């Protein structure tokens, strides 16, 4: 099996689905970059991060659609097209830009199925970039997916690597409800073994990244890698750590988490998003409600602080959780009585 980056895996997923189903279109800013320019380079184009490179050349301007900077209209057009039969993939360059277009997603697309009494949903995928790490500052670095998870009607996917990204994106495109597909910008260049052919990963099935019997670490997105790193170090100290990657935060695979907690009784939840009204809080509260009798220590959350993301790299380095902060939390719950 070939090793490819998460960027390539996402590209493959879109390519395969667009080849399979003519109703799948890609719409967004610079996804076919170069329109209206002296050189219309069909191969080089593909969004600011190059994720859709080559799709314009392969599927043409009718299905790989460059838009003006007009996010409300992009999201609304995707919702309207989805309501009437297409399966749009709408790209929102940075998740931070939801500020200018969220209405079309959460009041429109997310509500159709329920509000219209089940007549039709909005089978669309919003691909968007999340996360800190580039020194890009307060308006280009946020992990705002807990806001999406808060909205009934939206599904929210958060792949931690290339293999999952491909299978989850193909599944998301085929899903009949709106899916927010959140790609961490610091993971695009990370490689994993990925099959060339098409495959699907169901939404709502967590992955047990690592088995362990002392402490359960539930980690989201990029945090999965830090949790695995911390778990390796802790193993040398004799602490056996299970790492669970929910992969989708809505729906959330409650059973896989609770099964592990039943064995360990001790839990650390790790997320890069801010802590208040967060997935970390949600997962912790779910465990307290549904796994209370298993618990042997208070649950620890390791998250970003309740602050915006600073531009300064030294401040940003203290923003997101680290392997060290995860290890410390695991030790704390492990040593609790």
């Amino acid at each position, binding site marked *: 099996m070939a090793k490819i980056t998460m960027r390539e895996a996402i590209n493959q997923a879109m390519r395969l689905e667009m080849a399979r189903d003519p109703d799948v279109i890609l719409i967004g*800013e610079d996804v076919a970059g170069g329109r*209206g320019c002296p050189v219309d380079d069909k191969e080089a*184009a593909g969004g600011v991060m190059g994720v859709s490179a080559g799709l314009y050349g392969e599927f043409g301007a009718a299905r790989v659609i460059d838009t003006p*900077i007009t996010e409300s209209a992009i999201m609304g057009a995707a919702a309207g097209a989805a309501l009437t039969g297409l399966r749009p993939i709408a790209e929102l360059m940075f998740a931070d830009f939801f500020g200018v277009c969220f209405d079309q997603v959460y009041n429109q697309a997310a509500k159709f199925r329920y509000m219209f009494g089940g007549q039709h949903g909005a089978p669309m995928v919003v691909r968007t970039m999340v996360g800190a790490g580039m020194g890009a*500052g307060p308006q280009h670095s946020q992990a705002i997916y807990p806001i999406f998870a808060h909205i009934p009607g939206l599904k929210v996917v958060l792949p931690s690597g290339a293999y999952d990204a491909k299978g989850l994106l193909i599944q998301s495109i085929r899903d009949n409800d709106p899916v927010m597909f959140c790609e961490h910008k610091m993971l695009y260049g990370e490689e994993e073994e990925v099959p060339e052919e098409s495959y699907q990963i169901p939404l709502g099935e967590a992955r047990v990244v690592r088995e362990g019997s002392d402490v359960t670490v539930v980690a989201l997105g990029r945090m999965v890698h830090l949790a695995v790193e911390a778990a390796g170090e802790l193993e040398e100290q004799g602490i056996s750590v299970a790492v669970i990657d929910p992969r989708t935060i809505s729906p959330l695979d409650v059973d896989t988490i609770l099964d592990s907690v039943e064995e360990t009784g001790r839990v650390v939840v790790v997320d890069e998003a801010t802590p208040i009204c967060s997935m970390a809080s949600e997962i912790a509260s779910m465990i307290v409600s549904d796994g209370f009798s298993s618990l042997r220590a208070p649950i620890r959350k390791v998250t970003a602080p309740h602050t915006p993301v600073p531009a*300064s790299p030294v401040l940003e380095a203290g923003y997101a959780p680290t392997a060290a902060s995860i290890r410390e939390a695991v030790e704390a719950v492990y040593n609790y009585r």
Partner: protein
Amino acid sequence: MNLDEAALRHAYETMRLMRIFDETGRREFLAGNLPGFIHMYCGEEAIAAGICAHLTDADYIASTHRGHGHCIAKGCTIEDMALEIFCRRDGLCRGKGGSMHIADLEKGMLGANAIVGGSAPLAVGAALKIKTRGDSNVAVAFIGDGASNQGTVFEAMNLAVVLKLPAIFAYENNGYAEMTGVDYHCGSGDIAARAGAFGMPAHKVDGTDYFAVHEAMAAAVEHARAGKGPVSIECVAPRWYGHFEGDPQAYRTKEEIAELEQTRDPLTLFRERVMAESTLTEADFAAIDAAVSERIEAAMDAARKAPLPEPADLYTDVYEVYD
């Protein structure tokens, strides 16, 4: 050309500061010394200089991601800007904003902005403050050609007309929104006409010509200060560099870029005209160039060596602290 020698010198120095600040910033970025992104203003200097020549600290501007030139024209201190793009502790925004968020409220500079189209409603808000207080100042929004398509910008223009606010919409048409050309992304192809359709005077000028921008802004400011409502000015001035540093620019030819530098350099055009029509000489410009280079090297050097923020700064200024 009805500007005195001091004004001409100031205009040139301002544009030269912008040029060298960005070229030196680019060098630092390529050397890995600056975090995040850097967006070059080269080729568009005459816009910010011509617009801001009519403003005082009591007037406002709201800027864009390509904001260094706007900051300089509005009087932000170069040294403090340098500290900010290096994300240093003593930068204008304490290193928390960086290149895309330089702000200096004392100078009426309401911030560069990493949200495209974010500037227009903010400037309208500043104009609302001016009108509410009965002042005679103005508020300017700088808006890219790409940003001109954003819903926030349309809403802001309409509100400014409805409320008859002293707002000036300064469009910077540099031909591109990232990798997409204006011919494609702007449906009518005419940003000024579209602004005019909202019910305000709207002009289109050569944004590489300092004097054309200066003259259009003089009229706009007079109109707005007189309480007659908003004005739009579309300034056309091609972007020399890629969208951000690191953009391979596969969408245009090397020849196009080289030709721009040779034929559409606002500083060269300014120098040539001023030398022909005033008493300023080659030597005067050379002296300004030398002083600017020296000042900017010193500012960048100091910024490079300046202290970083303290880890605890991460937690400050989320909210006002009451004690």
